[in-house]
């Protein structure tokens, strides 16, 4: 068999190599064995594992997937077209709905791109509050993932813990911005408002609760033998493949790529003021992806704590004209969103609204690897792999 001479597998680490070879072997077996009875299995569009309406069509041979293809588009809302008929400040209310679990994080890169074109920078206080809210939306988003992960593997308890603790974070976001899910709080040049009184102390208490939640999930789920045996070595993505498909965020770091846009790019947010660790995992399997997300939630609570201690005083809004016209130019800004790299390529013609906005959402790239990844896996593993890749339908379809 050609597996041992496979150029991809030759570059991998030992452990990763074994899992990769196992998956390739499963694939090869499918090719040589007589296909006795094929079957086409349709998963979704309404299925708890699909976080919305993703439909997966899988051709099976026995219990193994021969070919699988996700079918998206059940939630395509045409945001790229709609942005072209809106003014710059109006666009944020649209893009809030892309990744609806971490809405505030969607607004930030677009606003930063517009600010870059206008050559405006938000005051330091606004940058710090942006960063805090950004991390809070990450916690709100990923804590639900951690709970939901359990449900998809047949454990009911984690999701109750997740909803209980996510509620505290949503309350914080609501008290600061006025919106639980869609804050629409970011403005070109700063923020709509300052933080309410007492918010900082409240947040610190909540961050402690969230760290406890992470500990609970870690012992309850990650230490569980069934969980481990269902995720370890399942859905291995080697480093090369991950980069080729443009995977980002935890999915990329789980394949051993040490890259975090919060740390590795200069961006007018307060990440350079805080000390945090970027976690990576060498395995590239489902377990690694879940584990990275757990660590990131914990890390995010620490970032928020540090930022709350040093938050500067001053205004939260720079001087910008009442009617915002963005000068002609092109700008690309991406940030490390809860789901991965989210970026906007904004083309402006000096008009009230953008000429073209390309929305590069993380889930679209993350899920585009599934036809490659699902080949040769067993049916129950489809659910594990999809859960661990973690996507939001609004983030795929836009």
């Amino acid at each position, binding site marked *: 068999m050609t597996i041992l001479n496979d150029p991809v597998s030759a570059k991998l680490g030992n452990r990763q190599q074994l899992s990769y070879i196992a998956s390739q072997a499963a694939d090869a077996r499918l090719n040589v064995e007589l296909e006795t009875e094929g079957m086409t299995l349709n998963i979704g569009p309404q299925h708890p594992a699909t976080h919305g309406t993703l439909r997966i069509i899988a051709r099976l041979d026995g219990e193994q997937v021969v070919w699988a293809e996700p079918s*998206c*588009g059940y939630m*395509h809302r*045409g945001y*790229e*077209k*709609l942005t*072209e*008929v*809106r*003014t710059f400040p109006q666009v944020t209310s649209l893009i809030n709905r892309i990744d609806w679990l971490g809405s505030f994080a969607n607004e930030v890169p677009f606003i930063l791109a517009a600010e*870059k*074109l206008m*050559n405006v920078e938000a005051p330091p206080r606004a940058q710090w509050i942006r960063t805090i809210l950004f991390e809070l939306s990450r916690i709100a988003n990923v804590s639900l993932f951690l709970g939901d992960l359990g449900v998809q593997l047949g454990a009911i308890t984690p999701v109750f813990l997740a909803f209980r603790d996510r509620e505290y974070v949503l309350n914080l976001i609501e008290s600061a911005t006025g919106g639980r899910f869609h804050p629409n709080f970011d*403005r070109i*040049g*700063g923020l*709509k*408002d300052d933080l309410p009184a007492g918010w900082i102390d409240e947040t610190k208490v909540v961050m402690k609760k969230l760290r406890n939640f992470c500990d609970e999930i870690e012992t309850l789920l990650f230490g569980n033998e069934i969980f481990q045996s269902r995720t370890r070595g399942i859905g291995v993505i080697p480093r*090369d*493949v991950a*980069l*080729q*498909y*443009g995977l980002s965020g935890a999915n990329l770091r789980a394949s051993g*790529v040490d*890259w975090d846009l919060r740390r*590795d790019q*200069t961006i007018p947010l307060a990440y350079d003021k805080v000390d945090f660790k970027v976690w990576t995992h060498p395995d590239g399997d489902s377990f690694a992806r879940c584990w990275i997300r757990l660590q990131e939630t914990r890390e995010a609570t620490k970032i928020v704590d540090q930022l709350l201690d040093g938050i500067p005083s001053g*205004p939260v*809004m*720079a*001087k*910008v*004209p*009442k*009617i915002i*016209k963005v*000068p*002609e*130019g*092109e*700008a*690309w800004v*991406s940030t490390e969103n809860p789901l991965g*790299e989210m*970026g906007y*390529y904004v083309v402006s*013609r000096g*008009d*009230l*609204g953008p000429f*073209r906005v*390309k929305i*590069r959402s993380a889930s*679209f*790239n993350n899920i*585009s*690897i599934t036809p*490659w990844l699902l080949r040769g896996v067993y049916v129950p593993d489809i659910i594990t792999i999809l859960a661990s890749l973690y996507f939001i339908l609004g983030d795929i379809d836009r």
Partner: protein
Amino acid sequence: MSSPAETTTSPSVEVKVDTARDAMVAAICTTLGAAVVDSLVKPGDDIWVRVTTESWCASIQALKDVHAFDYFCFLSAIDWMPSPYGRGEDDPSEPAPVRDTVIRPGYTGGDTRMQLLVRLVNSATHLGINIKVDVPNDSFTIDSICTVFAGANWHEREAHEMFGIGFTGHPDLRNMYLPIDFEGYPMRKDFPLLARMVKPWPGIVDVEPLPGGADDEKDGTNEDGVKVEGAS
């Protein structure tokens, strides 16, 4: 190299020199040779490179192999034709407004209506690059880069159904989002946004005063004149 200086106002930004990005562009020009049509470096920000249509696939391959741009960020298209419908803010009872119909390309220029835009990143140095290429006006067809970056597959499918760009060598250009029998290419500028045609845009009637902008009038910014445009 063309300069974006007219868009920046602060002099401190203009004099900034970005040695890493300048060196990268010089290296790319050496490797690709005549394939590079134009390039632009915005110091501390980004790189834009435009390559010829014929060398498209080979250029991407060279950028990946020689310059280690191994991370595929996205592929998309830009339709540079100004929309004949504007932003849909017109009153249908009024005579049609005069609109710009000249196709003006963006950074690094362009000779065609459609351009492809690809962003690649070097995963070791975290240096990103935006690569543009002209898509011929007569055929709207260009080579697929699926063989170089497998991740381009879905992006090309999306560009195919939204912009009507054909990709030679793509394994499967099925629609991702639209129904099979959908006619037209929604992201092209001449495709009307029907929601705006059915119910005309009422104009900007609800401008929220922004904090910090209260004394704008004193600064002599007379941009308020824009607000009344289209409002009936």
